[in-house]
Every structure is written in C-alpha cells, then in structure tokens.
C-alpha cells in the first residue's frame, strides 16, 4: 500500500487542531505557533501532492479506497483531479496567512476568566475548518463528501459567532447580537441546503441500488457504470437529484438570490474569518458543482444551464451594484465576492474549455486577491476601531504602505491586467461569449462596476484630507507586511505566468467537458468553410 498522502494532508491539520486546543490557557503564544506550524506542515504536504500529481496521468490520482460501512455501500474513497489538487494547494496556502493576519484577533481581554481559552479555540477551529475543506476536495465518495461538507459548518459557526469583529458602531452588546444573528443565519442557510442535498444523496443511492443491485455512493463506480450502460437515471429523477445537489452548492457559493447570508457573515466576523469564508469554504460550493453536478448529472446540468447562467449574470451585476451602495468596508467586499462567484458559476456552466479553466483559475485568483484586500482592510479596521467607510479619509498620507497594498488588492479585485484575476475573468467572459454572446456582453458590464466600487472605496478611505481619528495611524508592521507581500507577489506572478496552474487544470476540464458531451464552438470563419 502506498503512502496515504491525501489522508495525511487532512489529518495533519486535524491533529494540529486537537493539539492546539490542548495547549494550557496561559501559553497562548505557544498555541499560536503550534497552529502555524501545523498549517505550514499542511502546506508542505499540499505542495508535495501538487508535485506528485501528473497532469497527463489518470483522471483521479493519489487515490485511496477502503470499505467503511459495507451494508450501506459506504466507502472511504479519496482522490484528486487537477482542479481538486489546485484548490487544496490554495487552501493550504491561505491558512497560514489567515492565522498570521489574525494573530491578535483572539487574544483574551485582561479581565476574562482564566479557564476560557479563546486563542487556543480560534486557532484550533481554523485548523479544523482546513481539515474539513481539504477532505471535501478529496472525497470521491458522495456520502463521504456530504459528511465533510456539512461538518465544516460547525467550526465555521463558532468562528463567526464567537470571534466577531470588535469594531462595531453599535457598541459591544449590539455587536454580540449582530454576530450571533450572522452566525445563525450562516448555519441555517447552509444546513437547509445540506438537508436537501442529503435527500438527493440518498435518492442517488436508491437509484444505484435499484439498477446495479448493490447501492453505492462511489463517484468512480457510478461513472463507470454509466459509461458501461448499466446505469441510466430517468430524466425526471436525474433533474430532481441535480437540483438537490445544486441547491446546496448554490447556497454555499453563494448564488443570487441565496446570497444574503454572506454579507452578514463576512461583515460580523473578523477579517481573517471572512477570508476563510469567502476564499476557502465557499470554494467548496463551486468546486462541487464541477465535480458532482456536472459529472453525476450531465443531462440535467445541461437542462438547467439557461436558468443558472441567468442567475449567475444577475449575481455579477447585482453583487457589484450592491457593493457600490455599501457603507461598510467588509460588507462591500462581501458583495464584491457575490459578483465574483457569479463569474465562477458562469464559467462553469458556459461549458467551454475557456469558461471552465477560467472558472477554476478564478477560484484560485479570487482566493488570493480577496485575501489580500480583506486582510489589509482588517488591519485598517482594527486600527480605527470602525468599519464604516465614512470614518476614514486621507489614510495614504499617514500610512502610505497600507494604502498602497490596499490599492493593489483593489486593483486585483477589479481585474487589472498584470494581476492574476484578469486572466481568469477574461477567460470566463470569452468562454461565455463564444456560446452565449448576449450574456457575455452583459457580464462584461461588471468590469465597469468593479472599477466603481473599488475606486470609490479607495477614494473615500485613502485620499483627501486626513480625517479625525486617522492622524496617528501606524503604517503596516512587519507581521502584517509578511502577510500582504507574498500575496501580492503571487498575484503578480500568476498574472503574468498562470501556466503552472492551467497546465494542471486543463486536462481535468477536458474530462469534465467530455462527461457532459460538450465541445467548444468553432470559430465562425472556420465553421463556414
């Protein structure tokens, strides 16, 4: 038996969570370093997986397969394709930055009970989320995926509800109330989605049991059976099952009109947790659309495509317009993310090579760019003790490095060429346009709105005369620079040379497209001849 690399990549952060949580209350710095160390170890493992992955090899690699509950056909099956292995690397990459950025976010206040260990809890929960997310990317057994997909809600719930933003206009009590509302809303929305998905998962199991004799949750087995003509899901059944899966992923992604939990959750949690939500956890939703919706239900996916594409375009424009209208920095970034998730979903369901490669690249780039923007915003908010845009002004005069990095994060968010998100956004647009020109053009309007919300935010917070409360603001410290500088370097690198990622992703996209029997439209000039 070969070394179970995928299992270990998930076990390391999980073990890290346990160990971090066990560090005594007085040793909070030790707990932080322990957690950071485990997250770095996970990163090393993720890089090993990335290197060991052969883009031209089998579709699923580094696979592990064990029977789990034989009676129900439950298996412990892991495996990664190019898309999964890339997203695992993204997750593992972001977690250390999230920790460093939130280094002091969970320091206990002076007068708290000594038995309460918020720092240990905060860092342990982050590692726990990482383990769940990594397992969700790895699981090729549908039920196994479902378990981790749901399980990550629990640590996330506590991270949102327990460690909210200390900067709140309404005072400590109001902050706690808003925080708990946001956490409950997050949980309810995602649980509702999860429950519907569970019904569909079980439905899928019954279908396989009926047609194959023994029920199975294994993605590979189902695909093989369908390929061999042994499994043929009735059209109506396939559509219902597809909708069950898609609903859960659309809540998590989030797709308009199921997005309203996101601004609450991102607004009330600390900036690093907000990054965890939008850059890491939400990616599982879009990833699962690619892996489960398209592969398990190719015909139903095509059937639902028109509606999904329209919802995605609405998300793009609506999210951007809402971002323009926000008065709260973090909610603004949250709505910008709604817009960006619209792009990702658009790319997935355009069903072209450019669209899907672009969407996968978009997941990576959005993770990095939102992390850069949101974490700098977090530093800014912590300094001022407010997240209202109106409380800022003239920051560039007193903290030029902070302002500069904030601008670069913003420029990445508005997809400026030279920075990574441009490549993915353009790929999604061109991939959509080649099949749905009108939708492609409407989505392109998003680039103007993105410029608007980013530059208005920058202008109001950073330029103009120095406002009261800003005068003494310190520029970025070494730890903060350590968070931002590598992210910016990555944005620049992937903006100029995305080839390392596209090389891994392209073959997987090719597989997915052949699952749904779609080929790219030919150029009009060639088609004529």
């Amino acid at each position, binding site marked *: 038996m070969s070394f179970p690399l995928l299992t270990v990549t998930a076990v390391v952060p999980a073990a890290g969570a346990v160990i971090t949580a066990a560090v005594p209350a007085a040793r909070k710095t030790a707990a932080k370093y322990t957690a950071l160390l485990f997250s770095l170890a996970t990163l090393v493992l993720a890089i090993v997986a990335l290197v060991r992955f052969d883009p031209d090899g089998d579709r699923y690699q580094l696979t592990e397969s064990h029977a789990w509950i034989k009676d129900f056909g439950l298996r412990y099956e892991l495996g990664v394709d190019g898309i999964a292995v890339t997203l695992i690397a993204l997750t593992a990459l972001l977690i250390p930055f999230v920790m460093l950025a939130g280094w002091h976010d969970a320091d206990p206040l002076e007068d708290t009970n000594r038995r309460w260990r918020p720092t240990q809890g905060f860092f342990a929960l982050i590692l726990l989320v990482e383990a769940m997310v990594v397992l969700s990317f790895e699981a090729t057994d549908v039920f196994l995926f479902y378990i981790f997909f749901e399980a990550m809600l629990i640590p996330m719930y506590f991270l949102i509800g327990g460690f909210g933003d200390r900067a709140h206009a309404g005072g400590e009590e109001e902050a706690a109330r808003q925080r708990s509302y946001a956490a409950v809303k997050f949980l309810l929305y995602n649980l509702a989605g999860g429950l519907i998905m569970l019904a569909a998962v079980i439905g899928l199991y019954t279908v396989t049991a009926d047609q194959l004799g023994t029920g199975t949750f294994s993605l590979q087995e189902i695909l093989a059976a369908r390929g061999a003509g042994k499994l043929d899901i009735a059209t109506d059944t396939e559509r219902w099952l597809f909708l069950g899966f898609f609903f859960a992923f659309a809540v998590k992604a989030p797709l308009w009109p199921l997005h309203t939990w996101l601004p609450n959750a991102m607004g009330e949690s600390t900036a690093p947790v907000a990054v965890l939500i939008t850059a890491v956890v939400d990616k599982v939703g879009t990833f699962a659309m690619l892996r489960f919706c398209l592969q398990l239900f190719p015909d139903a996916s095509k059937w639902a495509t028109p509606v999904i594409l329209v919802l995605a375009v609405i998300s793009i424009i609506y999210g951007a317009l809402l971002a323009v209208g926000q008065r709260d920095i973090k909610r603004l970034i949250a709505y910008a993310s709604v817009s960006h998730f619209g792009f990702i979903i658009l790319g997935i369901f355009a069903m072209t090579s450019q669209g899907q490669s672009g969407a996968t690249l978009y997941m990576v780039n959005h993770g990095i760019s939102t992390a850069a923007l949101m974490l700098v915003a977090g530093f800014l908010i912590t300094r001022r003790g407010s997240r209202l845009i109106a409380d800022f002004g003239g920051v560039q005069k007193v903290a030029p490095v902070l302002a500069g990095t904030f601008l670069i994060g913003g420029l990445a968010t508005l997809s400026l060429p*030279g920075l990574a998100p441009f490549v993915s956004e353009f790929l999604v647009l061109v991939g959509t346009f080649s099949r749905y020109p009108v939708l492609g053009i409407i989505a392109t309007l998003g680039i103007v709105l993105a410029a608007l919300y980013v530059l208005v935010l920058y202008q109001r917070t950073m330029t*103009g005369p120095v406002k009261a409360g800003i005068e003494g603001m310190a520029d970025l410290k070494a730890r903060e620079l350590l968070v931002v500088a590598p992210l910016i370097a990555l944005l620049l690198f992937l903006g100029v040379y995305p080839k390392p990622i596209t090389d891994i992703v392209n073959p997987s996209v090719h597989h997915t497209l052949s699952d749904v029997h779609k080929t790219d439209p030919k150029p009009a000039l060639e088609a004529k001849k």
Partner: protein
Amino acid sequence: METLIGLLVAAPLLGAGVLLTGGRRLDRTGHLLGTLLSLLSFVFGAVLFVNMLGKDADQRALHSHLFTWVPVDGFQAQVGFQLDQLSMTFVLLITGVGTLIHVYSIGYMAHDERRRRFFGYLNLFLAAMLLLVLADNYFLLYAGWEGVGLASYLLIGFWQHKPSAATAAKKAFIVNRVGDIGLSVAIMLMFTTFGSFAFADVLPKAQDASATQHATVTGIGFMLLLAACGKSAQVPLQSWLGDAMEGPTPVSALIHAATMVTAGVYLITRSGAIFNAAPDAQTAVVTVGAVTLLFGAIVGCAKDDIKKALAGSTMSQIGYMIMAAGLGPIGYVFAIMHLVTHGFFKAGLFLGAGSVMHGMNDEVDMRRYGGLRKYMPITFITFGLGYLAIIGFPGLSGFFSKDKIIEAAYAKGGTEGWILGSAALLGAAITAFYMTRVMLMTFFGEKRWQPDAEGHEPHPHESPSSMTIPMIILAFGSVFAGALFSLNSRFVHWLEPVTGHSEGDSPVSAGTVTAATMVCLVIGVGIAWLMYGRRSVPAVAPRGSLLTRAARRDLLQDDFNHVVLVRGGEHLTRTLVYLDHSLVDGVVNGTAASVGGLSGRLRKLQNGYVRSYAVSMLGGTAVLVAATLLMRAV
C-alpha cells in the same frame, strides 16, 4: 536585435519596480535612476530605428516571441512583440518625449517630497505604453491599454490629498473602463470569428471575413471605436480629460497630450484592415472625429484655466487624427503624422504652461496672468513657436500635418467629404482663435497678477535649465518636424508598407485647401486679437453668451452625466440595497421558514435559541437518514 525590443519595455518596468518598492533610501537618487532608464529605453529605440532604416521597406518588421501567457484549450494568448514602422514611430515618440519630460520633472517636482514615487509612476507609464504599441496581438495590447490607464490614474491623483485630484483620477479610470468594454468585446468577437486575436491572424483575414461575416467585422470596428473614444477622450467619452488636468503638468504634457490619449488613433490605424472592410464603422469613426474636433475647440475657447484650455485643444486635435484615421488609406499616414507633430508642439505648450505656473505660484487662471513675455523670455519663445505650430502657421509642423488631413477629408469625396472637410476648416479657424486667446492673455497685455491664497505676491521668473532645455528641444520639433516629414513625402513612404496609402480623388485642389486654411487662420487670429489684444482683458470673467457659459461647463456633458448616470446610479444602488435587505433576504428567509413549517421556531432561534435548533436539526437529519436506510433494508 529582437532582444532589444524586450529590453525596451523592461528598462522602464525595472525602474518602476525599483522606485516603487525601494523605500526612502532612494529618495535622493530615484529621479535620476528613473530618467536614466527612460533614456536607456530611448537609446534602445534609436538603435532599433537605425537598424530598421538599413533594411528594405518591406523587410523592416521584427518579431520577438517571449512566452505563452495564457495557455488554455483554444485560447492561446502570447507575449510577443512586433516592431514595424508604425510601432517604431510610437517608440521614438514615447521614449523621446518621455525622456524630455523626465528631465523637465526633475526641476518641476524638485520640492515635492514624493518625487521618487512620481518618477516610479512615470516609468510605469512608459513601460505600459511601450507594451501597448509593441504588442503583436490584441490581448497583450489590452494589458498595455489598461496599464497606461493605471499609470494615468495614479498620476492624475498624484496629489491625493486634494479631493479634486482624487475624484478626477477615479473619473478618468471609470470612463476609460467603459471604453475597455469595447476592447474586451472586440477581442471576444475576434476570438469567436477568427479563433485568434493576433494581428497576424486577424488582420489579413478581415477582408476575407467581411464577405461572410460582415456584421461581425462591422461590430468589431464599432467596439474598437468605443475603446478609442475612452482612451482618446472622444465624444461621448471625453468628459474625463479636462478633469485630468488635476495631475502635475509634466503628466498632462506626456500622458494627456503627447502619448496616451493618442492610443485610440494607434488602435484604429493598427486595425486598419478591419475598418477598411467595414465602411459603416468608418463612417462612425469620422463622425466621432469631426464632432470632437469641434467640441474640443469650442470648449477650449471658453476656459480661463490655461491647462483646461489646452486640454480642450488636445481633444480637438485628436479629433482631427481620429477623423483622418476613419478616412481609411487616404488618412492613416496623416493621422499618425499629425499625432507626432502634435506630440511635439502640444507637449511643448504644456511644459510652457507648467513653466508659467512654476513662476506664478501655481496660478492657472489666465485672467491673472498678462505681460509675462518680458519676465520669462525662453518660455515665451518656445510657447510661441508651439502656438504658431498648432495654428498651422506656414512652414511649421502643424501647417503640414493639419493641412494634409483637411485635404484628405475633401478627398473622401461626395457629401461626406464636403461635410468633413468643412468641419476641419472651421476647426482650424476656432483653433487659431482659442490659441491666440491663450497667447494674448498669458504673455501680452497688462499685468493682472494677484497674490495667492497665502498672500504671496507672484514674482515671475524664468524656470531652471532642466525645465527650459526640454522646452527648447520640443520647440525645435514643433518648427521643423512637419517640413522634415513632408519633404519628398518621406513620412508617407515610411508608413505606407504598414498602413497602405492612397491619394484619393479630391474635388478640391491642394492649393485651394491651403488657401482656405490660411483664410481661416487669419480670421481666427483676427477675432481673437480684436477681443483680447486690442481690448484689455477683464480680471473677472464676464457672464458671456449662452454658448460661452455652456462651453465653460464642457458643453453640459458633466451635468448630463451627473443627472443621468451619477444620480440615477445612486438611486438604483440605494433602492437595491434596501430591496436586498427587505425583499430578497425576507423572501428567502420566509420561504425557508414556511416550507419547513418552522416560522415560529425560526423566530425563537433569532432570539438566541441556537443550540436547541442545532440539536433538533441534527436529530431530524438522523431520523431522516435512519428512516431511508431502514426502508432500503426492508
């Protein structure tokens, strides 16, 4: 030689990187480093130019492929350069004028504590602009296109502590983004039509494609025009250029007069094959050009701010270029020729304006100038030569290049030719008027100087030599470039292999056009002299006619934008914010609650009974799973 093309871009890019991340220790030397790298880029350009001259006219294009930028099935974006006569012309203009303006800025920005950063941005601009004109495909061109937009944004807003500068910068970027939609869609159309967006694939096939895909090729033309309107400040996307004058004056000279704003002309000329195959798009191009050349000229007449008057003029002159480019092969060469001569004289005029401001406590209101010729002789003479060049005084640069455009407009033939030619002639008269006005108000008449806000009396003085030398060099260009280019049709022969050229069939002889232009010039200068030379200029602007008042407000374009777009947009977003909270959120929550029959429980939850809910949810899940599995077992 091919490697040099890459180095041409790399030198200023390196400068930008070093200056912007180098920190305070570079404050003392940063400006010299930036200038040096700009000069180095110019030297590379000059070497390539000499090399190019040594080859036959049709062997001159150089290609250099660096690496694959975006490799995705079907979509292969390359980073590759193409240096032909057209890009060579731009390279020399960009690095040449660019280096002069770097030198000028050493003096102009000497007292600014953020000078290092200023030079970093200038270098960034050079790199992006060179990328724009050297790219061998539209996708890479797009990167340069937005890159210059970024540099322009950073430099307009260089004095960010001034709210007006920050607003102007944002406006410029956003208006340009509207144009960028055009370029994006054009690239997508190229991709879906030709399967590629490289010049070498698209341009040769455009003629071929117009037979079967006529509407698409026309669409590409319109989209490219939209892009050009944004970058080159053409109607209806011109509103940002006047505000862009908030930037330091060297920026106005380099980016908002000589180079970046002419990128639209480059785009249309480069895409000539597409426009040649799409006559409808060409008609749109000439219309935009003709309207803008009058629009800008009228605005230029009414402004009292010297830089805004010059900005109106820039808009108008680019209108000439766009119109010429829209004429097709009869106009491409002259569009570019006017672009180069304009680069000299307009950069010179802006640097002159900067020199005047430098001596007048940064005053920009021409009504507070007057009689400056005695105090700033070098500025006066160089500005005066630029003035003579732009109005088309016989023998100077503008005379040759503008005259050719007017001729080409008539040569278009038919009613269209008459309309365009007459618009261009009228524009020439108005140009003569507003430029004479600027000249008279600034350098002649009595002193109307006023102390500045802090009560300092102005003590006008000539600028240091780091500023005057670039002005003198540009003045030489303003005087001689036109004649040099026109001798033996040298410029036509130079560009012809790339753009193609035809003489057209003019209903009016060249001599008649020149004579008419001269009459217009005399009329324009004469009226200006009657209004501003013979009579003294009031220190406070008179109320003026309806047209004057409208022109002061940029012909109400901003008011329109404000009422329709800004106000409308604000209402839209506010309504949406409200609806998102009350309607979308409410409906989704409500649906979830009623579907689950949980509305009562949901309310309870929001009061904080989370744990009970989580438990009941978990319980429900367990029951559901158990029940289903049990059913299976039975």
